């Protein structure tokens, strides 16, 4: 229709037709997705096929097509293994505690930061608290190991102020757990706060003005306007976090743990690395990983469904 009208207006210019076609050009869009699609196929989809080795006694020589099939042997071994239950519990404990702390602390920090009226101060604080998120766990482990050592800064401080014996932060099981959770919260709380700050900046000032007219002080305004405005986004963050209860942060644990505290510190991912790549038990490690991925997948799908139902959240 439209193309026709244009041609009627400018009958001497057939070019228009080809231009109109050019707007669509779906082949060009396919071409643009192609590089990413190919890379994903090679480096994500092909390894998914490698999961089959969880049902084999995989040997590198014959490979995936020549190794003997053993059914669920590795999964049965996994279930009968007390240590596997221990690391699953450790993983849930670390991830669960971090999820709760990483929700509550940024929430309140965002509320407090929202009360800072001096923009320059607010910006400076923001810049500083985001920073640790961008440092790697390798760097931070180096710093932590140094600061938490027996003669390190923290122990010196503790012994001079409280007069107690140095604490073995990274060598004692329960202190190790504390250190893992505390350092993770320290590293991420600023960054996790961004989403709440975004929600805060979206609150209409007229709500506050109306509340002031009605005589509400800042405390009342916070309770009846600010917090209710943050609750939906907090629900989204909490439900989406559900998919992560089997991810306890490999990088952090891997760089801070030691054989001394495996019992309290080992998680599924570090266990898979040691069993799989260091001990060469490819099939068993893949089985453990498959178990973890399968549970995670179910949880992620549930969490996305819930986030959509409760808060209308979609990723794209």
């Amino acid at each position: 229709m439209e193309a026709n009208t244009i041609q009627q207006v400018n009958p001497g210019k057939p070019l228009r037709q080809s231009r109109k076609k050019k707007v669509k050009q779906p082949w060009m869009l396919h071409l643009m997705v192609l590089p990413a699609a190919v890379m994903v196929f090679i480096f994500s989809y092909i390894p998914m096929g490698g999961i089959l080795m969880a049902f084999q006694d995989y040997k590198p020589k014959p490979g995936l097509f020549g190794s003997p099939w053993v059914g669920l042997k590795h999964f049965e071994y996994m279930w009968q293994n007390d240590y596997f239950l221990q690391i699953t519990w450790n993983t849930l404990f670390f991830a669960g505690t971090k999820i709760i702390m990483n929700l509550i602390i940024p929430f309140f920090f965002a509320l407090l930061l929202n009360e800072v009226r001096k923009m320059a101060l607010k910006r400076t604080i923001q810049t500083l608290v985001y920073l640790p998120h961008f440092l790697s766990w390798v760097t931070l482990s180096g710093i932590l190991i140094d600061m938490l050592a027996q003669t390190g800064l923290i122990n010196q401080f503790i012994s001079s102020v409280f007069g107690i014996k140095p604490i073995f932060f990274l060598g004692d099981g329960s202190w190790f757990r504390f250190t893992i959770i505390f350092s993770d919260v320290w590293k991420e709380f600023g960054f996790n706060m961004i989403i709440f700050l975004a929600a805060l900046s979206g609150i209409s000032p007229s709500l506050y003005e109306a509340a002031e007219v009605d005589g509400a002080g800042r405390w009342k305004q916070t309770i009846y306007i600010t917090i209710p405005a943050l609750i939906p986004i907090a629900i989204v963050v909490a439900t989406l976090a559900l998919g992560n209860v089997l991810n306890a942060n490999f990088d952090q644990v891997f760089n801070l743990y030691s054989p001394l505290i495996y019992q309290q510190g080992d998680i599924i991912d570090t266990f898979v690395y040691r069993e799989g790549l260091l001990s060469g038990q490819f099939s068993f490690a893949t089985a453990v990983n498959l178990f973890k991925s399968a549970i995670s997948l179910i949880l992620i799908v549930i969490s996305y469904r819930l986030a959509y139902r409760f808060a209308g959240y979609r990723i794209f």
Partner: protein
Amino acid sequence: MYHKTVSYRVFSVFNNVFLTLISVLCLLPLFHLLMVSLSSTAPANAGLVTFWPIGFTLEAYAKTFDNANFLSSLWVSVERTVLGTAMALVVNTIAAYALSKETHVFRARNIYLWYFVITMLFSGGLIPGYILILKLGLMDSLMALILPGLVAVFNIILLLNFFRTVPKDLEEAAFIDGAGHFRTFYSVYLPVSMPVLATVSLFIMVGHWNAYFDGIIYIKDASKLPLATFMQTIIVQADMTKLDPAAVANLSQRTIRASQIFISALPILLVYPFLQRYFVTGIVVGAVKE
């Protein structure tokens, strides 16, 4: 009105002081490390250095830059970060542009999107990935560090959500002027997408600079190790000291290690403040939708 009440003013002062202290706490460990690296060996080992260098010296830095392994790792990391970021930006942004189109323009859009999103939800895991790199003959190559993570679906989603906020009029004007998709992408979309491009670049750069684990499993040749992996081996070796209190006294390398850690974190400290003002907008527009 409430700004004038006494209780709010008192709260405000305490709040500002409290938040300032907390944010200083985010910088302090790094600052302490810097001070250790600038001190002479003896007081550093005795644990006397807190937030001021004792016996100021640049010796640790001199020794660090004398270390051939450190320098070659530094170079590998620079190479990896520059090449990896450039490649990832091209691949991810063009894919995100195409996927940001409506389904009536690009019918296969949703199929592609699910094809990508599935890889976010499920993966083969460590061992199959390792065996793939082995079979592809990529061991000990720079590409083993770049290619597996080249497509970051999270970044594609961030980018495409941003691209969808670009006014359609701009695009239509470009089409009427005879531009194709590549030209429209390059001349119209990219210039107006600076916040999200800065965000994604920062994520990718930091990711490459900080990545150490792929170096552990894919690189055997010491001269090809990226800096983060090199640092990791140093820290893990030094790990022994935290197990054996007697060995702590033996920590003659403390200042050198501190200087190495500091240098390895330096590029991030330098780049981050410049991109920081962009990434808040970038993340917010990409993640929060109306």
